[in-house]
């Protein structure tokens, strides 16, 4: 078939299988419906003299049985689709993270090493990739039909998407949420390559001059924006003795559990760090006064991503 791309992810093949099952069920029902209609149209047409017998009186047995049968089939389909969906949106812990920012009408991608690309995404094969996505303006949607996956990209928050490609190749990337006049042109390609090729690309493929490590760029911001004034150099944390105020340590923060003043315990992921930077009031950490100012509207999404990359690089801290 023209344009058909076999799925290159395991999950994609499972989705295909689910769609196939749905297709089979649909065909069976359609065959039943059309078959019966055609049969009755011929057998019971007005002119036919076929013996009709007595009309059946009780109908509720039929009603109960087809209602129950429909319900049972539907329930199975629901379980199947739901289970797969949950797996589809829970990334493995060791996923390689790549940041994606959508704007009218282009996709901006930034790798951990600072390599940036536009309307293209290079990924290694056989490795779970997690996209951390946000938008600068309207709602977009990151969709790769060959992976059978898509997710909306919203302004003001992070959405994530993950996949593991099994074969090298170039695959179409579409924006599938109407985002204005240039919606149709917000396309690109996902290039899957072997790990060595990918590393090659990382070191040489990205345009010169933009090749600055994300974490390094984040470190500059960390100092320039005054983060170090409270949280300390290298994110060691602050106390009245050292920095003058109590501030939680940031080294080793990523992935750890944080207790909030609201009593909830959350895992510190990108969303959490982003919230802490932009809306610190919503995430008051237990044991510290909430005095941090909000940076909402003061730094761009891309800079937030760099700060996060820097904070994530501070893994060796002596956080207790």
């Amino acid at each position, binding site marked *: 078939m023209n344009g058909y791309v076999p799925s290159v992810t395991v999950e994609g093949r499972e989705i295909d299988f689910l769609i196939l099952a749905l297709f089979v069920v649909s065909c069976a029902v359609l065959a039943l419906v059309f078959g019966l209609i055609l049969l009755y149209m011929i057998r019971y047409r007005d002119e036919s003299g076929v013996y009709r017998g007595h009309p059946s009186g009780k109908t509720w047995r039929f009603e109960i049985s087809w209602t129950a049968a429909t319900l049972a089939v539907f329930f199975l389909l629901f379980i199947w689709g739901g289970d797969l969906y949950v797996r589809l949106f829970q990334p493995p812990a060791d996923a390689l993270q790549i940041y994606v920012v959508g704007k009218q009408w282009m996709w901006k991608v930034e790798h951990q090493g600072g390599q940036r690309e536009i309307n293209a995404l290079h990924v290694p094969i056989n490795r779970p990739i997690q996209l951390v996505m946000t938008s600068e303006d309207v709602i977009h949607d990151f969709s790769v039909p060959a992976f059978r996956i898509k997710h909306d990209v919203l302004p003001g928050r992070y959405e994530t998407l993950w996949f593991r490609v099994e074969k090298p190749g170039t695959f179409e990337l579409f924006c599938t949420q109407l985002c204005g006049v240039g919606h149709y042109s917000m396309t690109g390609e996902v290039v899957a390559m072997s790990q060595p090729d990918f590393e090659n690309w990382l070191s040489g493929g990205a345009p010169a001059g933009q090749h600055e490590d994300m974490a390094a760029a984040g470190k500059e911001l960390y100092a320039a924006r005054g983060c170090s004034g409270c949280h300390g150099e290298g994110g060691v944390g602050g106390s009245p003795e050292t920095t003058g105020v109590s501030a939680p340590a940031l080294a080793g923060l990523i992935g750890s559990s944080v207790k909030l003043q609201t009593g909830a315990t959350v895992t510190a992921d990108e969303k959490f760090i982003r919230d802490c930077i932009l*809306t*610190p*009031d*919503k995430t008051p950490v237990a044991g510290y006064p*909430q005095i*941090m*100012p*909000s940076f*909402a509207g003061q730094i761009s999404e891309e800079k937030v991503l760099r700060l996060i990359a820097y904070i994530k690089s501070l893994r060796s801290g002596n956080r207790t």
Partner: protein
Amino acid sequence: MSDVATHEFQFASAEHQRETAISGIWLFLASEALFFGPIFLSWIYARLADPSAFDAGARQTDLTIGIVNTALLIASSFAYGVGLASIQFGSRRRMVVWLLFACTLGLAFLGLKFGVEWRSDLEKGLFPGANFSIQGPTRNGAQLFFAFYFFSTALHGLHLIVGLGLVAWIISQARQFTPKRHTPVLIVGLYWTFIDIIWLVLFPLIYLIGRAS
């Protein structure tokens, strides 16, 4: 004009027509209740986005005016109820007096709400946007609150203005109504109290929840 109830040709009797009209207004009110549904849901969303900042915005409202306005609306429903009872017991003149009183209370509500409270809110720079006066960490949540506040009170105010128009119309048509024929008075009364009910929900959402601990 004699006190004989007539009815339109699709009904069997005047009583049939009256019952139908009353069912109709109740269904209309059910629809109106859903009309306000998105406002309530947007309150839930806006508050969940940042509860403490949202509440900080809510505390900028003028509680005294809120309380007085609530009392005014309760009183106006009472006044309308007495007006309705008056026509049912045959006193057209007393009905007009009580309905005028209900109108006055409604007007007082509008005056306080828009003439005093809104004006002071606007002077304080509480309309969301670039000139919003609250700075600092609660700025966004407070803006969300005031977006909700101005929108919902404006909408409620519009309903009240429509209600006032209807009551004025009833007063102008007072000569038509008799103890047996006063369905329009009843119907407008239901709408009048419904506006009251909407306010009874909005009042805590705007003035109280943000002040509760």
